[in-house]
């Protein structure tokens, strides 16, 4: 298998067992790779041939033949408990007999080991047992429990009562249980003042859009801190701006919140790994935007997109070692794939010239572009 092919994933792809992200990668690879596409086709055809094999039914009477054989098999088996009931030995070796025998043995063993003090020998049953006192060597010469007589028990009880009385006098009488109540939490009432004037959501959005000032476009040569700056339209760093296409440099400074925005680029995205996605609905858009601006403060609001007529193409080649990197779309093609419309997006990573001055920070160049909506899948291809 050549490097770069996905032959090991074709089987799972056919069965729909790949997760959506991996499935999308396989689909993209298949679009561009004839070899893998042919193998997929052959494998799918073989799968269909196997599925279409005729279902072989058993001969008539086979089921009855097997049932008869099973009946004979069951009769020939003699599980425990099925010997002739009149045979004592047969009954004894059954599980019932063995269970009863085991119970009887247990009862006998327990009976033999019943403690002596429970047997009637003239002493009170309520006496307390204690072990024999230690002998002169400090060891228990006789470890059997020793019976106490009534007088000894009475003396011991009185001693205990006296000890308890002394303890109570020292500690005081505890409160009766019925008087114990859980402590009431004495928390101050909640101050509702900050929440008293919460505006409806729509008003908040309007207020935000009004208060955001246009993002300034950096002049050529200025070096910004890409880690904290909000994404600016056509932001460039270092000398990369000189080599960027003219269309990017001279575009007007359009606020990203205005519906008419066409493209957003920058050098700092929340996506650290390579990403290429065609965003076709508002839910995906807000999810991706939220992750894109995760490391920014303040976070810019989600740019407006009309997903009934437009899609958003997003490419981020992942973390780059220095400043000066950028990404651009070179071509967007509408084509056909498997008889259905498809879109192919070609993009290029712009690298800073070798001897140029670069900011020694890790950057994540990105590009968003609004494009007319496509009915089919979108495939991304990196070009040099």
């Amino acid at each position: 298998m050549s490097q770069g092919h996905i032959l090991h994933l074709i089987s799972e792809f056919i069965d729909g067992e790949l997760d959506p992200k991996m499935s999308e990668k396989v689909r993209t690879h298949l679009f561009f790779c004839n070899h893998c596409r042919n193998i997929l086709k052959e494998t799918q055809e073989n799968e269909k041939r196997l599925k279409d094999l005729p279902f072989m039914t058993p001969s008539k009477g086979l089921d009855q033949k097997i049932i008869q054989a099973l009946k004979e098999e069951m009769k020939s088996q003699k599980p425990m408990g099925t010997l002739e009931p009149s045979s004592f030995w047969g009954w004894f070796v059954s599980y019932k007999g063995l269970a009863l025998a085991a119970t009887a043995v247990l009862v006998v063993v327990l009976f033999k080991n019943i403690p002596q003090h429970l047997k009637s020998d003239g002493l009170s049953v309520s006496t307390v047992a204690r072990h024999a006192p230690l002998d002169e060597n400090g060891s228990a010469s006789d470890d059997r429990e020793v019976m106490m007589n009534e007088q000894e028990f009475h003396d011991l009880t009185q001693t205990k009562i006296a000890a308890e009385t002394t303890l109570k006098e020292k500690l005081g009488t505890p409160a009766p249980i019925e008087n114990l109540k859980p402590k009431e939490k004495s928390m101050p009432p909640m101050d509702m003042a900050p929440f008293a004037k919460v505006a409806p959501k729509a008003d908040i959005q309007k207020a935000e859009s009004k208060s955001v000032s246009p993002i300034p476009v950096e002049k050529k040569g200025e070096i910004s801190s890409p880690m904290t700056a909000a994404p600016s339209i056509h932001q460039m760093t270092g000398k990369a701006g000189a080599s960027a296409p003219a269309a990017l440099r001279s575009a007007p400074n359009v606020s990203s919140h205005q519906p008419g925005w066409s493209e957003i680029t920058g050098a700092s995205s929340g996506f650290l790994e390579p990403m290429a996605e065609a965003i076709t609905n508002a839910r995906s858009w807000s999810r991706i935007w939220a992750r894109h601006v995760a490391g920014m403060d303040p976070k810019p609001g989600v740019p407006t997109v009309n997903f009934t007529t437009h899609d958003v193409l997003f490419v981020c080649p992942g973390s780059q070692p220095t400043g000066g990197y950028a990404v651009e779309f070179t071509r967007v093609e509408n084509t056909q794939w498997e008889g259905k419309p498809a879109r192919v997006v070609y993009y290029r990573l712009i690298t800073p010239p070798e001897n140029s001055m670069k900011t020694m920070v890790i950057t994540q160049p990105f590009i968003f572009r609004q494009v007319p909506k496509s009915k089919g899948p979108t495939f991304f291809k990196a070009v040099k």
Partner: protein
Amino acid sequence: MQKEGHSADDIYKIREGDENAVAKMVQDHLPRIFNLCFRLTANREKAEDLSQETFINAIRSVARFRGESTISTWLYRIAVNAWKNRNRSQARRFSKMHISIFEGGKDGEDKEIDIASPDPSPLENLERNEGNFFIIQTLKKLEEEEKVIILLKDVDEKTYEEIAGIMNINIGTVKSRLSRARERFREIFKVLGVKQS
């Protein structure tokens, strides 16, 4: 063909020797088990024997069936193991016998001693007429495990989880074995000279 509708009660009844429960199990599962046995053996007589052996082994081992899988998965597992055991004992027999292209003469002797070519049973001619001949020939050339997994997935349409239960392997192994089996099937099918459509 009836769907899997057995419950713990059915297993209990089978364990207790309830003949009706046993008959129901056979009637419900015999068609699928026979189809699998036929695809494994490519011979109707052998498939019938193997099916009967499967159900007999099931009755013998029902006391050990803990109900962790469905009855269908359990029976499939027994059928596959019975087939593998037959292959092993057949391989041992052939290794000791004189290899001849002629059939044995006495009754009771195994007639299939020609291992150079597949058994030309009448049913294979049927397969040839139906255009599935090369599929059958390709299946015969697969290894044991490859053949089983291809039949379970592409013919019986079992899920990965069911295949894992039948073959007593984990799902990751099912995926990798199936991928390799399908690739081998594709290569062999090509070598047989069948033009892909």
